[in-house]
């Protein structure tokens, strides 16, 4: 190594040290984007790459109207950052939301579909936005290195499916307790300022905690950690207690109307994943159930079938029959009932239901199976 190379390395080290010690710039307005330090810029770049990866895998849920609606809530909460904070619907049925260091918030369709009203959505968005405004990713010790490591891991696994796209995203959105508290407190202030009912904030997390407990979720994503959730609920309760005359907008009807189709989509996704626990959690709850207008009994029957416990056969039969009574033209219920009867050895009922299924759905993708079963039953 010659003297010039050594000199270059020395300059580089000095430069990196200077960068490392530069204070993190918080984003209170668009103008602050011009003053980001080196670490922030690197994180921003990594977040942009992650956006591209998400886009390549078609993980953004494509519903322009709903996205505009959710973005409008975010813009109302943070008018000074319109055009800087962006929200996308993430095509995942799990309960989660993340904010990347470049101001892109991804809210899972599973979470959006489970909220009760606009005020709860605003609670999530205001909380996530604070992570960006305070630049918590850049403030996290070793965060930048972790992101690079995560990026490398993803790179190594290139070409192999199912490696999990958001590894880097998980690292970027894994915050300390202090940062979470700050996001709760600052986000809550915005919620109140924007005129939403602050009493909905703790309800948002109570709801999530209940679901996490019922589903026995152990994944380390944002909303699933018990201590964090319980702490957060307590924190919100004390914040609400500090508001004199709490009240304000909730907008349940408008929210539920706008997210109606999304709820049906997530129901299909849970069934596709054989996730009977979530299906039962939703459809055995009369309040939640009434929000699912299209054939809830069919999905309930499928959930009983998948749970396959004692008496579930009978419950599934009852639910499929209910579905047929409610909508005699709904083909999947006949198929499900026919297969159930076939397994029970009730040949005639099986033949009737499977035949009805094929007559109602002549182009069914599983026609070959059903015809095979009918031949077996009739032989």
């Amino acid at each position, binding site marked *: 190594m010659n003297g010039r190379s050594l000199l270059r390395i020395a300059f580089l080290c000095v430069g990196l040290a200077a960068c490392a010690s530069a204070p993190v710039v918080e984003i209170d307005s668009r103008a602050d984007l011009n003053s980001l330090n080196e670490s922030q810029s690197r994180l921003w770049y990594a977040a942009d790459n992650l956006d591209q990866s998400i886009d390549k*895998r078609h993980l953004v849920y494509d519903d322009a109207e709903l996205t505009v609606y959710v973005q409008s809530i975010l813009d109302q909460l943070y008018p000074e950052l319109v055009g800087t904070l962006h929200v996308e619907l993430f*095509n995942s*049925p799990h309960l989660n939301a993340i904010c990347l260091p470049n101001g892109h918030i991804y809210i899972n369709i599973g979470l959006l579909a489970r909220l009760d009203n606009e005020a709860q959505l605003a609670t999530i968005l205001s909380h996530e936005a604070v992570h960006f405004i305070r630049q918590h990713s850049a403030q996290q010790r070793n965060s930048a290195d972790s992101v690079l490591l995560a990026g490398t891991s993803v790179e190594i*696994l290139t070409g192999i499916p199912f*490696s999990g796209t958001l590894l880097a995203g998980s690292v970027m959105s894994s915050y300390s307790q202090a940062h979470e508290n700050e996001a709760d407190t600052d986000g809550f202030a915005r919620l109140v300022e924007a005129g939403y009912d602050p009493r909905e904030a703790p309800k948002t997390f109570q709801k999530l905690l209940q679901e996490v407990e019922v589903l026995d979720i152990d994944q380390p994503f944002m909303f699933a950690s018990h201590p964090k959730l319980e702490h957060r609920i307590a924190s919100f309760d004390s914040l609400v207690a500090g508001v004199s005359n709490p009240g304000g907008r909730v907008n349940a009807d408008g929210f539920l109307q706008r997210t109606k189709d999304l709820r049906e989509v997530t129901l299909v996704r849970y069934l596709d994943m*054989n996730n009977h626990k979530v299906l039962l959690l939703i459809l055995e709850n009369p309040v939640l159930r009434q929000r699912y207008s299209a054939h809830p009994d069919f999905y309930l029957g499928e959930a009983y079938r998948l749970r396959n416990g004692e008496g579930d056969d009978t419950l599934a039969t009852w639910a499929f029959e209910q579905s047929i009574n409610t909508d005699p033209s709904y083909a999947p219920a006949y198929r499900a009932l026919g*297969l159930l009867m076939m397994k029970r050895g009730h040949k005639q009922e099986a033949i009737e239901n499977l035949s009805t299924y094929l007559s109602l759905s002549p182009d069914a993708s599983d026609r070959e199976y*059903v015809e095979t079963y009918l031949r077996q039953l009739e032989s």
Partner: protein
Amino acid sequence: MRIGKTFLILSLIALTGCQGLWTRVDPKAVAYKGDHYVVDLPAGWLRVQQNKIMLATRDGIGVQNITFVFRKHAKAFEETEQKSTPVMLPSELADRYVADLRAADEHGLPSLEIISDRPVTIDGRLGFELHLQFLNDDGLRYERLASGFANEAGFFVVSYQAPSLYFFERDRATYQQVLQTFRAI
């Protein structure tokens, strides 16, 4: 993040290269015994067997691979924790196989599409054949053929996977030939 055991094993094979584990299929002895099955592999392909999964590839597992999996009924679908039974209908086995694939992905593999799903006979038993496609992390479209059935011993699935562009069709016939030689024992 949830990652399936099968994926982890495949990743390990890919990342480490599994030095010393790979063997080239000898044209004079193509028959291999796996866990509860025997099968003839394509001559000249590379083969590796680890943790009850046998895998064969010609150019690398990201380019094409044929994978053989046997699972006991109680652990047939590890991600969804669903079981199989010897009398389970093939359409139900196919549904559970697809659900397990979706559940193995952190986000439910929203890019997964079922191109076809039909009954087939494998080793004299009624089973399923699925033709699937999905995007990997780089947005590269892959296709997979998966043929499965259940017997008294457990659930068997043989799958062939390759990028849609060029590679999938290139070795599809080879996979079908391999599948014809598959015998449960």
